[in-house]
């Protein structure tokens, strides 16, 4: 491409950061040394442009090294990847973890989201100086949470919780962040080998493959390789497993659709961009049992005959990143990944892809654009990912928890798995219980447990607290009142009750929580996280937030009636006309609060 590069040039540090991923610049036109020969020949073209999927990782390298992304850095990346500076700027400004303006080397992102603010965390307007407000950091069981990124050659990031205001101020002032706490904090039922999905959490050393193998690790893979891809597919279909990311699509059907594609280049993506406020199950799984994800991905790839997979992990999970990176590397060394896996003739490898602060990238088509080096905007469907997905090829996208369920299905059988649960909801389910309970954390239950059972498992409502409401399914989910605790947590019962399980969030709010503040936070969240592509969501989320701000003042007056009608109108257009699930669900929780909890009604 005919790039026009302005005069700003990258610093030595920035160049080094880029080169650490892409290698040294080979020639003049790619930003290398000027020499006569190089000026006469421009290589590149198609082969260079095929490197665009390295754009986001390269931006990460620069941001990790110098803390922000400068004009010079963008110019250099532009030459290296043959992508125009304006496009790179468009991508860099899409993500909240990046900044195109200079900022301090240490970045302190303080969670101001639902669970943290319910647990006396910070709010947007009362942050310690120098700290930055962040949407849910997925450490709700230890709220309030803070993510520290110490940029530099030895970049280091830690997700710390609970974090006091004083601690946050010290971090901003440059105090080194301590290491994170042990993982078992995230799952109070563990260690317990009788659990199915959490059986190894707190039991094995998540960094040791030997430990994993000694605890039934890779048994399912060996069995899968023996029974063949068709049989694996049959077992998964028979199991009745549906996706655990929130949409509850039958996994077997998704796999079968990809397996049936005539196109042979296919991709498997593990969606670990867990960003739904109140959700932290995937983090606990990845931190505590990362080899299980590798194993289940190999099985999924085998069944659908994909030869390359991606784990799209949100950038706010540093320990999950360390542990899964380690697991992938070791698995590759031990031939559980790579070519001719365990002598089966099957080839499959995994690339770990780090998100950069964008809830929308958990949308299954936005994830494709993000990996391909474009802005993480959802695509129009149809065509569906099983036909046209990543790089235009058939693609399976599965959530982390969904993939974890593959192991018991293969180890036993689909039929046995489907014996667990209710008529419409099969198997085991993880719930993320947070807020005003004695023992917040990830809990595993068989489908069919009630909301009351889950709260009871979590030690009950905190002593001295009175239950006000429960948020099910996260910001895209809905509230239920204290009179609805007998709700059976199955897909069909939730649907019938007009609510949703979503990503398995159970956020328990006691009477000390200001519901209006919670609703305003939800509105702010969707406004911040909307990609901006379609009008109903881009402007609708702003108007929704403004209407709530007006209602704070006008509750009970005639103006309030107008604003409540306005909210309903906005909800309908977002649900009916938004491109993707973000806009379609951006009014759900607010709607449930207005109708079920009677917030703002007088």
């Amino acid at each position, binding site marked *: 491409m005919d790039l026009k590069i302005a005069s700003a040039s990258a610093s030595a540090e920035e160049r080094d950061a880029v080169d650490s991923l892409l290698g040294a610049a080979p020639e003049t036109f790619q930003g290398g040394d000027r020499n006569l020969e190089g000026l006469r020949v421009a290589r590149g073209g198609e082969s260079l442009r095929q490197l665009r999927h390295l754009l986001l990782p390269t931006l990460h390298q620069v941001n990790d090294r110098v803390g922000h992304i400068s004009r010079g850095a963008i110019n250099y990346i532009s030459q290296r990847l043959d992508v125009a500076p304006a496009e790179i700027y468009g991508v860099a400004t*899409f993500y909240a973890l990046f900044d*195109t303006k200079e900022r301090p080397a240490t970045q302190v992102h303080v969670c101001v989201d639902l669970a943290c603010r319910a647990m006396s965390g910070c709010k947007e307007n009362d942050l310690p100086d120098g700290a930055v407000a*962040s949407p849910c950091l997925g450490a709700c069981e230890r709220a309030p949470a803070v993510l520290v990124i110490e940029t530099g050659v030895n970049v280091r990031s830690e997700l710390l919780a609970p974090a006091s205001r004083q601690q946050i101020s010290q971090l901003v002032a440059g105090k080194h962040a301590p290491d994170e706490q042990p993982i078992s904090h995230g799952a109070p039922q563990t260690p317990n080998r009788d659990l199915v999905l959490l059986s190894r959490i707190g039991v094995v050393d998540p960094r040791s493959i030997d430990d994993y193998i000694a605890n039934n690790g890779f048994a399912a893979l060996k069995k899968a390789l023996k029974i063949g891809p068709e049989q694996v597919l049959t077992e998964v279909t028979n199991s009745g497993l549906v996706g655990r990311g929130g949409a509850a699509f039958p996994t077997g059907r998704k796999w079968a659709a990809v397996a049936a594609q005539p196109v042979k280049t296919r991709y498997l993506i593990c969606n670990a961009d867990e960003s739904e406020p109140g959700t932290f199950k995937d983090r606990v799984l990845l931190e505590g049992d990362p080899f299980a994800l590798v194993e289940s991905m190999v099985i999924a790839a085998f069944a659908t005959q994909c030869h390359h997979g991606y784990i799209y992990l949100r950038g706010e999970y540093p320990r999950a990143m360390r542990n899964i990176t380690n697991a992938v590397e070791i698995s590759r060394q031990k031939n559980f990944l790579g070519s001719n896996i365990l002598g089966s003739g099957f080839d499959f490898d995994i690339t770990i892809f780090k998100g950069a602060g*964008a809830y929308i990238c958990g949308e299954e088509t936005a994830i494709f654009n993000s990996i391909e080096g474009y802005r993480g905007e959802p695509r*129009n469907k149809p065509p569906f990912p099983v036909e046209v997905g990543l790089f235009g090829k058939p693609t399976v996208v599965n959530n982390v928890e969904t993939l974890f369920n593959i192991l018991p299905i293969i180890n036993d059988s689909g039929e046995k798995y489907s014996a667990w649960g209710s008529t419409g909801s099969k198997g085991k389910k993880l719930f993320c219980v947070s807020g005003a309970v004695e023992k917040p954390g990830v809990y595993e239950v068989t489908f069919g447990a009630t909301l009351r059972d889950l709260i009871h498992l979590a030690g009950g409502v905190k002593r001295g607290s009175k239950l006000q409401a429960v948020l099910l399914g996260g910001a895209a989910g809905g509230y239920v009142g204290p009179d609805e605790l007998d709700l059976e947590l199955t897909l069909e019962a939730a649907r019938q009750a007009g609510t949703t399980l979503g990503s398995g969030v159970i956020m328990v709010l006691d009477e000390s929580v200001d519901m209006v503040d919670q609703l305003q936070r939800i509105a702010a969240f969707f406004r911040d996280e909307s990609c*901006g592509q379609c009008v109903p969501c881009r402007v609708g989320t702003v108007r929704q937030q403004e209407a709530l701000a007006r209602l704070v003042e006008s509750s009970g007056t005639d103006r309030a009636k*107008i604003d409540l009608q*306005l909210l309903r109108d906005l909800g309908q257009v977002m649900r009916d006309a938004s491109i993707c699930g973000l806009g379609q669900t951006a009014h759900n929780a607010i709607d449930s609060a207005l109708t079920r909890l009677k917030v703002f009604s007088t």
Partner: protein
Amino acid sequence: MTTQVTTGLKVRKSVDLTIDGQAVTALEGATLLEVCRANGKEIPTLCYGDTITPKNACRVCMVELEGSRTLVPSCSRKVEPGMNVKTDTERTRHSRRLVLELLGSSVDLSLTKNVDKWNDNYGANPSRFGAPSFHHDDRDDAVTGHHHQPDGKTAETVHQPVKIDNALYVRDYSKCILCYQCVDACGEQWQNTFAIATAGRGFDARISTEFAVDLTDSACVYCGNCIQVCPTGALMFTSEFEMREAGTWRENDQTQTDTICPFCGVGCSLTLHVQDNEIVKVTSPSDHSVTHGNLCIKGRFGFQHVQNTKPTD
């Protein structure tokens, strides 16, 4: 009944579907919008342009499709056999009304065609979200994932100062509905220049050069193909902008004359817009099989010599 129609070398099957209860036959590959319009249905469009692949971003052309949980964008949804489509229902009217209100309350649509008519048609009242707010002129400095807190009174807008950084055209992003057409025309669909892209996210998403530098520092080649596709007047010839400012722009008094660009051998078609015997802007017919409305800097802006006046600097 399935018939086959041969157009050129391609064989296109015909597809039977139902629109508003009426059986309709369309060619495979056609969009619902094309079929609806061919059958006399009036469907509003804002971000749709006839030379750019639809981005289906504005969502004003939504129609109801049986079996679909949400409405579907008619501009990009292709016909399928057996589809049952409704173009005028309570849901479609609601969506169109709200989209018109949401855009009308946040963007200056004064130069967007048909908006008044559609507002009447769908009962849209963009002022119901409160008085427009003009206090945030710093859209180029927006921080991703953060926003100005609403003040509980006004409705935020995309208002910002007009960008005047070159002699040929201005960018008034207060009028931008983010249809993406200029980005696609500048980038991969036509010009392959990539001087502009969408930056930022959510309500702060905006069309921008890298770091919002002036066009003169960007990769812009002044082909003006972005102006050609802009549906809202956000991108405008400087000549038109200045005449509008001076109150001398009289579109009804203008003539349009098609001619051939004199500069090179390609022979692109030009449409000269003339007022008071002066060329005031140049477009190109979008249905021309060679140019599809695209020109280069010479055809688009190199018309002063015709009038033999001193070019502005």
